[in-house]
């Protein structure tokens, strides 16, 4: 864990509500979905905070609101002390050099008509960094760092497997040397043996470049080895937050316990006990 206690990112009472509309021509608001409903947390420089929860718990929406890819309904998001929700477009655009995102699906998050080199280099072009030659060198370096053969810069994404594509996505996220990377389910679309490669890569990059991760995932087993701290989300709210070790070995909330008991573990002997535990927790949650 990082010894630097300075919070890189401070999220306070974040809300994101989506209106539910009805009617075809004249739409009216009939209600709202509170996707994120009063979430507060800090992410310290150099650490990994993981947001875990089931689909619909609001974890990805929280990630998008942090990066201002979605405008939060209310609440504050401070990055190195700067309030992001009040920044104008141009200021926010400059701010994005510091914070990047790696998406879940390496099949749909890369433009199929761009070459690998263009994909990785695009952030450099957008932010007007370097000459063409500088950028080409930088692209090769980035691809090399993520373990992708730099001689393939002129190929297209469809020529590569999921794991290789995710490496391209990571190289692109690293292009502007950001401080914070939001990893939105970066391995859930990958096979187990490839998952391990990408998780190890993310860990190495964090060490080498002092990156800070906001790691979003539904798989508690994946999150376990990655995180310094863990925040469990359910229905738009934080249910429990604490050091990873604490949350796993001594969960306080029934919801966290239920999530943990649902993870299939590769130990056939533990099966019976866990089934029993799950049954109890299900009925406890149903009553509560």
């Amino acid at each position, binding site marked *: 864990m990082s010894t630097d206690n300075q919070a890189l990112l401070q999220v306070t009472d974040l809300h994101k509500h989506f209106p539910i509309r009805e009617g075809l021509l004249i739409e009216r608001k009939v209600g709202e979905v509170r996707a994120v409903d009063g979430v507060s947390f800090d992410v310290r420089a150099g650490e990994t905070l993981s947001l875990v929860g*089931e*689909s619909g718990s609001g974890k990805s929406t929280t990630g998008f609101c942090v990066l201002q890819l979605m405008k939060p309904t209310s609440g504050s998001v401070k990055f190195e002390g700067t309030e992001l929700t009040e920044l104008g477009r141009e200021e926010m655009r400059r701010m994005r050099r510091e914070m990047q995102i790696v998406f879940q699906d390496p099949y749909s998050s890369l433009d199929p008509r761009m070459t690998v080199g263009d994909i990785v280099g695009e952030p450099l072009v957008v932010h007007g960094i370097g000459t063409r030659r500088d950028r080409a060198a930088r692209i090769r370096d980035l691809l090399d760092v993520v373990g992708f053969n730099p001689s393939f810069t002129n190929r297209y994404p469809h020529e590569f*497997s999921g*794991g290789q594509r995710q490496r391209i996505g990571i190289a692109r996220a690293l292009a502007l040397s950001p401080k914070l990377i939001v990893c939105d389910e970066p391995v859930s679309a990958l*096979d*187990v*043996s*490839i*998952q*391990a*490669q990408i*998780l*190890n890569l993310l*860990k190495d990059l964090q060490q080498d470049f002092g990156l800070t991760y906001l790691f979003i995932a*539904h*798989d*508690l*087993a*994946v999150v*376990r*080895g990655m995180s310094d701290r863990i925040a469990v989300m359910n229905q738009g709210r934080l249910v429990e937050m604490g050091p990873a070790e604490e949350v*796993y070995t001594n969960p306080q909330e029934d919801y966290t316990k*239920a*999530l*943990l*008991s*649902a*993870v*299939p*573990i*590769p*130990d*056939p*002997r533990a*099966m019976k006990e*866990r*089934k029993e535990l*799950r*049954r109890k927790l*299900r009925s406890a949650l149903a009553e509560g």
Partner: protein
Amino acid sequence: MALLDVTDLRTHFFTREGTVRAVDGVSFSVEKGKTLGIVGESGCGKSVTALSIMGLIPKPPAKIVSGSVLYDGRDLTTLSERQLEDVRAREIAMIFQDPMTSLNPTLTIGTQITETIRRHYDVSQKQANKKAIELLEKVRIPRAPERLSDYPHRFSGGMRQRVMIAIALSCDPKLLIADEPTTALDVTVQASVLDLLDDLRHEYDMSMIIITHDMGVVAEAADDIVVMYAGQVVEHASTLELFDNPEHPYTEALLGALPQLEGANVRQGRLTAIPGRPPDLINPPEACRFGPRCRYAGSDDCTVNEPQLREIRRGHWVRSAHPASERSGSRVPEQVG
């Protein structure tokens, strides 16, 4: 006697690029009342194996080029489409990975359950409806009678998978093939669907084949496990035996690569990744298919001759020249860390 006996099954796809040997000599059997787990990564041929058993592979481009699928004494690969239709549902039923796309969005779930019942049994619509309600209650869908007239979009992913299970059970099959039944679902929903399947298996006295990429899922659900790699069975043993004494380097690597909640690899922080990726099945490696990714390969003839599946201990089959128990020195490979 085994309920299902698959012997040397080979299903190849004939494409413009060449012949894809998706399933290349797979053998296993499923005992009555038992669950067999088939584990492997995408492209290892586990789903094509299941589809071949059901006679559901697209022909062309696919073709079963050799092997037999003996079910109850009959070879399913020789049956006509008409005969297969009777086998499906009545004898062998299947549920698929994606509950979002396997139901017809334009028909109520009542219609979809009863059409299966009425296709296979001579009953009135009223009787079929009654049976459908019973089935929905069996798979623990609340307010079953009302939900019969709902369309699939009104059900969540977990609930849709329950509807699929209800349809699969509607004709009392003796064997249920579940192809990644919980992969698209949240962990908590996955757990409840797996628990449900296990309860129903006992209740209906069915055998089950559960296909998954998740070692955790087979550990929970299966009595016996087949590990597949690149179209072949690389290891086959009872669940306890396989987890206690994994023999094949690939099985060991899969277990090492798995992020876990508990156990040795949590603390160590780094996962033991398997380098490279699975081979192209148009031109698989000539000798051992795992060879290029295997940490033990190269020391002998396994790079020249293809290892055969052999019984290393009673009931424990492995296809490798370097199973764990035959390596010199430490029986357990040293951890990378």
